[in-house]
């Protein structure tokens, strides 16, 4: 068996935990969603430096479907509070409107601001919680997120190759 990093081992352990509470009779699609859910929660639950994207991912998972909460809490091993560390859709809209108002008051620049903001927008949408991070934090979180995704994929790939 090939040597695994402690991150991969921790992920596998937590993923396995999440899979244990899956239903017996489920369709292929339902099982796929359960596998993916456990995998995503498990990788977010691994202990590591950055915490923003992890928290954001778990909040997203619970917001998408409240029943996911029991998977989250089972893997975490404790209660999970979906606190307002994330912006709600309404407050996000308010934030956007007030930002637009500030931009209108600002003197026009030679370089269109939209292009500069746009280049990180795609990344912000891909990293959980990215919309609320400033530039430096976003890049730090991106690195940690990529490392974690890699671990997740490597372990899943290994398991899938057994069949």
């Amino acid at each position, binding site marked *: *068996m090939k040597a695994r990093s402690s991150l991969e*081992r921790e992920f*596998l*352990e937590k*993923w*396995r935990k999440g*899979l*244990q509470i899956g239903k*017996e*009779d489920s369709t*292929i*699609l339902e*099982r*796929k*969603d359960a*596998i*993916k859910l456990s*995998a*995503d929660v498990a990788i977010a639950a691994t202990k590591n430096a950055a915490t923003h994207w992890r928290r954001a991912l778990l909040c997203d998972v619970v917001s998408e479907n409240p029943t996911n909460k029991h998977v989250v809490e089972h893997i975490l091993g404790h209660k999970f509070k979906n606190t307002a560390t994330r912006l709600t859709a309404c407050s996000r809209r308010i*934030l956007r409107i007030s*930002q637009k108002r*500030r*931009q209108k*008051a*600002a*003197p026009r*620049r030679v370089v269109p601001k939209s292009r*500069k*903001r746009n*280049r*990180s927008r*795609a*990344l912000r949408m*891909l*990293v959980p919680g990215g*919309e*609320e991070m*400033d*530039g*430096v934090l*976003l*890049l730090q979180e*991106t*690195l940690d*997120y*990529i490392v974690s*995704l*890699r671990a*997740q*994929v490597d372990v*899943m*790939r*290994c*398991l*899938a190759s*057994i*069949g």
Partner: protein
Amino acid sequence: MSGRRSRQSSNTPRITDDQIIDLVSKLHQFLPEIRNTRRSNKASANKVLQETCNYIRNLHKEVDDLSERLSQLLSSIDADSPEAAIIRSLI
């Protein structure tokens, strides 16, 4: 209004090129297709951001595909024990 600097929103400050270059050096192990450029310019910084986004998208897709494949594999054998056995054999 003259002399009044526009205030940057603290929620969407621009990412500087230097920060991108720093990211490049760390990402290089994951993204071999990024070539190390000596001078920092906007084009390479944008390219790095683009490559990073593509890479994350690919990883997301792979997680999705692997989840589907694993689901198909598991459905072809019995529910509880083989699943646990396979996973346990890897720990």
